[in-house]
């Protein structure tokens, strides 16, 4: 022990080194290196198109919902409705504002989604729990109806669908699978970085205080209503960007039915399985949700080829999904991320447990 042992240091310079020195986050840097360099070099189009792009976008959507449900404690079953707003708003911006660069259009779509989320979040100052869920369900059905009924939103196309008018950045065409992958990856990394910092900031801590007990939060001087509405807006921004990417970088052509209530449930499942109130959990949950169907398909074709048809396989998938959700809620309410953390702790002590 040194001379500081009886008094707390008054400045960071005087503090023990452990407090100020931050280790390089090597695992994260390796992951980014793999994602930005190795995968573009090695990955083939199928992997990019069918697995990585949807996985990344679903993670982003999960992140958006997690900010609202996992961090602020406001259950929402209308996530896909806000994704639709982002998709249709980005489409309108790209179509109607000539020369608008793609990143700005995405951000603009996100901001419009945030505005809509803010409006649907207003009832949260009076109601909570199931009752608030009804508001989000209303948002889901109302928004779906709006984007089906009013042709202006899909530029009077007879099919009622939207597809990206142009997908380019600084003159580079992003239509190839690799281009779209890099677009999605960059957006996801940037937005995740912002989210990590947001939940560590005053705002994030206020959100968690509201989640844990709103009355207590109000007592210590957090303005609960304002922060709930803010959570709705920020969450919708993320969902909006995810929706735009889902429509243009993954599907290519989308309609209101691409964002129906089942998509909302899917995103809710991502955060339940991955882990509520965890940023990394969204990625794990999304990976699980997008890989499990592929895995089941492989098993179905390999083991039971011919014996089970596609419809039955889908039913089986549903049953397994449902059981997994119940199992997670019973055994590990904090999701896969907590299971992995526990496993990591165990491995650290392996083989000499104490």
């Amino acid at each position: 022990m040194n001379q500081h042992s009886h008094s707390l240091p008054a400045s960071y310079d005087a503090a023990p080194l452990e407090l100020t020195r931050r280790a390089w986050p090597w695992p994260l840097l390796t992951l980014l290196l793999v994602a930005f360099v190795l995968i573009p070099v090695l990955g083939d189009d199928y992997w990019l198109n069918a697995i990585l792009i949807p996985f990344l976008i679903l993670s982003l959507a999960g992140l958006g919902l997690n900010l609202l449900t996992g961090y602020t404690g406001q259950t929402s079953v209308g996530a896909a409705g806000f994704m639709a707003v982002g998709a249709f708003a980005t489409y309108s911006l790209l179509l109607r504002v000539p020369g608008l660069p793609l990143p700005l259009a995405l951000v603009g779509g996100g901001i419009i989604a945030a505005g809509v989320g803010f409006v649907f979040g207003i009832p949260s100052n009076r109601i909570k729990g199931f009752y608030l869920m009804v508001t989000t369900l209303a948002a889901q059905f109302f928004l779906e109806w709006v984007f089906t009924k009013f042709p202006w939103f899909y530029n009077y196309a007879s099919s009622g669908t939207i597809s990206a008018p142009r997908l380019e950045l600084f003159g580079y065409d992003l239509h190839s699978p690799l281009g779209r992958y890099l677009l999605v990856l960059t957006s996801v990394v940037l937005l995740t970085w912002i989210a990590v910092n947001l939940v560590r900031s005053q705002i994030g801590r206020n959100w968690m205080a509201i989640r844990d007990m709103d009355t207590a939060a109000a007592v210590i001087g957090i303005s609960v209503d304002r922060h709930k509405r803010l959570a709705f807006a920020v969450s919708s921004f993320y969902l909006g960007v995810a929706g735009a990417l889902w429509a243009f970088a993954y599907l290519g052509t989308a309609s209101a039915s691409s964002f129906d209530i089942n998509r909302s449930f899917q995103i809710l499942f991502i955060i339940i399985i991955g882990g509520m109130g965890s940023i990394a959990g969204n990625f794990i949950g999304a990976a699980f949700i997008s890989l499990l169907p592929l895995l089941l398909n492989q098993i179905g074709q390999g083991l039971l080829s011919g014996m089970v048809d596609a419809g039955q396989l889908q039913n089986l998938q549903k049953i397994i999904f449902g059981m997994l959700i119940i199992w997670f809620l019973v055994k590990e309410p904090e999701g896969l991320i907590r299971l992995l953390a526990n496993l990591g702790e165990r491995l650290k002590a392996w083989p000499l447990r104490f």
Partner: protein
Amino acid sequence: MTFFLETLIGGLLAGTMYSLVALGFVLIYKASGVFNFAQGAMLLFAALTFVSLQEQGLPFALALILTVVVMALGAILIERTVLRPLVNRSQITLFMATLGLSFVIEGLAQGLMGAQVRALDLGIEDVPLFWGDVMVSQFDLVAAATAALVVTVLALLFNRTRIGVSLRAVADDTRAALSIGINLNRIWQIVWAVAGILGLVAGLLWGARQGVQFSLSLVVLKALPVLIIGGFTSIGGAIVGGLIVGAAENLAEVYIGPYIGGGITPWFAYVLAIVFLYIRPAGLFGEPAIERV
């Protein structure tokens, strides 16, 4: 005026069907504090089981009894595997568990009994009747009468039997009920079985209308505004709420719909529910929530 009355009565009668679905929710919510999202899946499962049994050539009554037995067994299984391990957890956790449960039941129903649309004939003819100038559907009348009968039976069950009294005790104060020796797990099994049977009744009526198919499980979403308006804990509220939603939907579609593009039924009930939430957050007949810190 005749047209207005026709719309109103048609809506009210359709509303009784919503009430039937909402009743299943209220029962389970009262007894175990769970918002049972799987009610729609149970409804689909019950209707599919009944139709499949009938297709095997079983007579109506036998198929009905067998389906009731299946639903009761299902309730016991659900209590054992889902409710018991999750006891004392937050309401939202339980809700999400029932969301998972609805996936399991839907998958099972369609996996075991097929996904195609089945016709269901209850032997009730859907012919228009005339009251003076006002045209009313006979089928809707039968459905409304069934709903009334079910409510009467439930009211008798709740007020006149030992099971009903212990059920109300559990709903009132779970701890106190436990301490005087009421078997909570048994009560849950009974309540879920009764909710399953209610699902069967509602499923048969809805199924006879639009065929027994997957979309039946979506009527749960319609029940949510009914519950908000009527209150989560009141049987009378479920009925009045259902009638209000049915009537308001029909009237709005006819009188407001044309001005804003039509097809507003999917969301109108929810907007109505939100308006109600602002005026009376506990619903018309619900108990106001008191929070302890």
